C-alpha cells in the first residue's frame, strides 16, 4: 500500500476538522513510514529498534500537538518530514551521537518505506499517566482512553466541557514533556 501525497493530505485536512476516523488512518499510515525512516537512519549508526519506536511515538505526538502548524494549502509530506527530521536531529544531539553520517534528504524519503511491525517503546503510558494531576488524568482517561464524548466526560466528572477540553490538551502536553524529559535523563 503506497500512500500518496493527495490521499494523506486529504486525511489530514479531515483530521483537522475533527474527523477521528480519518485522523486515525492518517496516524497509522504515517507511523509505518516513520518507523521505517527511523529504523533505517538509526540502524546505520548501530542503534536499536526500540529507539526507533521511541522516536516514532515522539514524532506522532509532535505531529498531533503541533497539527495547527500545518497549512492545508501546502503539501503534507514535507511538513511531516520536517518534523521527523527535527526530532531525529534533536534526539541524536541529546544522545551525543555524531551527526556527520546524517545524509541530506528529500521530503519524499519519509515515504520511501513502510514498516508495520511495531515493537514497544520504553514509554509506559500507565506510569506517565500516574504522574499527571488528577484532573488531567481523569479527562484523558474518559475522553481519550474510554472514548466518552466531551459532554459525557464533563457530566461524569462535574467539570465544564471547556474545562474537560483544556485538561485533555494540557494533559497530552504534559505527557509529551515527560516523554522528552525521560529521554534526555
Amino acid at each position, binding site marked *: 500500500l503506497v500512500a500518496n501525497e493527495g490521499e494523506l493530505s486529504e486525511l489530514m485536512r479531515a483530521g483537522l476538522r475533527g474527523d477521528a476516523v480519518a485522523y486515525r488512518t492518517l496516524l497509522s499510515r504515517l507511523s509505518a513510514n516513520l518507523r521505517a525512516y527511523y529504523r533505517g537512519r538509526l540502524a546505520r549508526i548501530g542503534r536499536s529498534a526500540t529507539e526507533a519506536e521511541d522516536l516514532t511515538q515522539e514524532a506522532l505526538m509532535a505531529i498531533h500537538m503541533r497539527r495547527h*502548524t500545518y497549512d492545508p494549502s501546502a503539501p503534507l509530506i514535507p511538513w511531516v*518530514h520536517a518534523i521527523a527530521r527535527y526530532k531525529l536531529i534533536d534526539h541524536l544531539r541529546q544522545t551525543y551521537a555524531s551527526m556527520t553520517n546524517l545524509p541530506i534528504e528529500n521530503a519524499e524519503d519519509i515515504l520511501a518505506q513502510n514498516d508495520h511491525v511495531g515493537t514497544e517503546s520504553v514509554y509506559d503510558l500507565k506510569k506517565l499517566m500516574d504522574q499527571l494531576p488528577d484532573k488531567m488524568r481523569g479527562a484523558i482517561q474518559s475522553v481519550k482512553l474510554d472514548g466518552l464524548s466531551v459532554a459525557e466526560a464533563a457530566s461524569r466528572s462535574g467539570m465544564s466541557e471547556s474545562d474537560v477540553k483544556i485538561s485533555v490538551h494540557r494533559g497530552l502536553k504534559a505527557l509529551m514533556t515527560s516523554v522528552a524529559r525521560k529521554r534526555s535523563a
Partner: protein
Amino acid sequence: MKTDDLIDLLSTNVEPVDHRQIVRNVGRAIAAGAAVAMAIVSFVLGPRADLSSFAILVPALLKVAITVVVLLPASIYLIKLARPGGEHRMPALLVAAPFVAVILLAALSLTFAPNYHWSGAVLSDEWLECVISIPLIAIVPFAVIVWVVRQMAPTDLPRTGAFVGLVVGCVSAIGYAVHCADDSVPFFALWYGGTIALCTFTGWKLGPKLLRW
C-alpha cells in the same frame, strides 16, 4: 507502550483545530510588541518636540515607513518559518532588499554632502542613545513573540530566532523613531540599521535555546 495504543489515544475524540490561528497569533504578538514599544517611548523617553509641525512630522513618518517596509516581509517570513519545513518555502534574501536600498540611499546622500558634513551626519549626539534604546525597548516585544513562536513548530531554530530578532528590532525602531530627533539618512542607515542587525544577530544566537520544542 505500543504505537497503536498511542495512535488510539491521540485520535479518539480528536478536537478540530484552526490552522489560521498561527497567522492571527503572530500578528497579534507583533501588534502587542509594537504597542509596548510605543508606550515605553512615549512614557519613558518622551516623543520628540514639535511632532505636530509638518517639517518634523514628515521625516519622522518617513523613518517609520521605511522600517515598516522591512517589518512586513520579515513578519510574513517569520510566520512561514514557524511551520515545520517553512525554511524551504521562501528565499530569505528578499528580506535583505530594503536594507540594501537604505544603505544605497545613505551612500548617495553622503556622496552629495560635503566632506566636513560627514561626521555630523553619521555621529550626531544621538547615536549612543539610539544604539542603547532600540535593543532595550526590544526586550519585552522579544519575549512576547518568542512565547508565541514557541507554541508553533519551527524546524530551523537559528533562522527563526534571527527573524524574531529582526521583527522585534523593527518594532522597537518604529517606537524609537517617535522620540529620535536625527533625521539624516546616513544616521538612520547606520544606527537604526546597525541596531536592527544587532537584534537579528542576538535572535540568531538565542533561537536554538529559546525556541526548542
